């Protein structure tokens, strides 16, 4: 079992995977409580546009994915607040539009290959040193934000207006939260894949909520579920040559089902 850690690529995959599990589950608590679950899916598809541009233009796809994902998050917030369009309709339009744009770009650039496949479903083989530095660099900033502002974000998730009337900068923090979620999603697509990252962000929290415990314990349970799923999922990916995103998400779904059954009332 531990033999797999003797390989450099597995060490890189585990560093990236554990970092992403931490970021996805901690941010996922706020994403779920604020009813932003569909937004994580939409941003994951927007990140794919960045990957497509990166692959075609020859730049680091992860960097471009981070930039495009942040721009998409801002555009979603702008459309939701400035036009009379239902929020879920905005997300649906952006999701389909992003995927269509990404597929068109890679088709025109002739980059429809295994490399794109790894960004769709995640691959432990594909995590490079540069990816690890990018994930740890941007990820540290995101983690710092989540830890520093967790009490404010929790209050906002509970009641946005009451939080605002107590003097908390709600609009600014919401804006920062969607930006950080966009970064985390873009960073995650290397290991989990753009089609599956939404699940790693949302399901550990939804499973943790079944235990009906306070805020901190809910966050810690979600973190534990995400870390466990990533370790087990990447190990299964290694032993059975499966896409890591798929095995990780299947693990987290099994945890969710068990949590539902254990806490059935």
């Amino acid at each position, binding site marked *: 079992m531990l033999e797999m850690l003797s390989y450099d690529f597995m060490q890189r995959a585990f560093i990236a995977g554990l970092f992403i599990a931490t970021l996805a589950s901690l941010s996922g*608590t706020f994403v779920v*409580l604020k009813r932003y679950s569909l937004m994580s899916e939409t941003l994951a598809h927007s990140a794919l546009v960045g990957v497509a541009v990166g692959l075609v233009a020859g730049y680091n796809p992860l960097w471009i994915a981070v930039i495009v994902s942040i721009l998409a998050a801002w555009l979603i917030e702008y459309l939701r607040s400035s036009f009379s369009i239902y929020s879920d309709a905005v997300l649906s339009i952006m999701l389909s539009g992003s995927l269509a744009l990404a597929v068109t770009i890679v088709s025109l650039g002739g980059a429809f290959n295994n490399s794109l496949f790894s960004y769709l479903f995640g691959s432990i083989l594909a995590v490079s040193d540069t990816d690890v530095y990018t994930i740890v660099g941007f990820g540290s900033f995101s983690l710092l934000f989540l830890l*520093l*502002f967790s*009490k*404010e974000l*929790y*209050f906002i998730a*509970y*009641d946005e*207006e*009451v*939080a*605002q*009337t*107590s*003097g*908390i900068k709600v609009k600014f923090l919401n804006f920062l939260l969607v930006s950080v979620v966009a970064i985390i999603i873009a960073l995650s697509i290397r290991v989990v894949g753009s089609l599956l990252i939404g699940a790693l962000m949302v399901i550990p929290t939804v499973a*943790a*909520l079944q235990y*009906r*415990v*306070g*805020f901190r*314990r*809910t966050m810690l349970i979600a973190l534990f579920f995400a870390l466990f799923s990533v370790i087990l999922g990447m190990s299964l990916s290694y032993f059975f040559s499966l896409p890591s995103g798929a095995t990780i998400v299947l693990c987290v779904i099994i945890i969710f089902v068990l949590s539902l059954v254990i806490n059935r009332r």
Partner: protein
Amino acid sequence: MPVKFKAPIFDVKNLSFHVRDQVILENISFEIFEGEYIAIIGPNGGGKTTLIRLLLNLEKASFGEIRIFGKKLQDFKEWYKIGYVPQRATLVDETFPGTVEDIVNMGRVARRGIFAGMSTQDREKVRDAMIKMDIFDLKDKMVGTLSGGQRQRVMIARALASSPKILILDEPNTGVDVVSQQRFYGLLAQLNKEENITILFITHDIGVIADDIGRLFTINRKATICNDPKKLLSCDEVSDLYGIAAHSLANHKHEH
């Protein structure tokens, strides 16, 4: 007339609020002083909640000026001095991951810095607020599992934890039984008398709290202020604007 203790907490002059061509509130002026207990009544759609939202900077006034503790609304920063309990306060998602203590802790968030954890003073304020609202024994319970009356007290405790000068309540009564409601009114009167916390309270139960309140604002696009508590239930303006006879309000008091 109210006793003028210090500079007003709220000083509202010629306040109007329009949505497109519709006038929601028109030329409203009043002052609220420290230690007062004011009830706001008026028909549904009369603009009561809009007035509260304007005072809390959740809506922008079309015309007029609001000063809080002597400062212009846009320059006012010490929002933790104002405790707000909205209408939907008792409607909590059952799965929301929050114990009673988690929720009351929120009252200290705006007072703490970004890097600060809960200080001893923060913990004491939270504990005091829970004891005052008689929910200390429930502190580890999930808020979603509480009754309407218990939730109501949790929300007041959250507001109290920030040591506010004024509590603004927008009829937070949904799902609350009559007995709990009576207890709630008693707690508000106690906070006003013993802690000198100013209270601004939108309610339909004016008859029940008539003995506690000092002034009555009736809001129905315009405001009428009834200053004399002894004549509270016979103010002609109250009857006219609220749309029911004053004696109905008085009778309502005895029904509870």
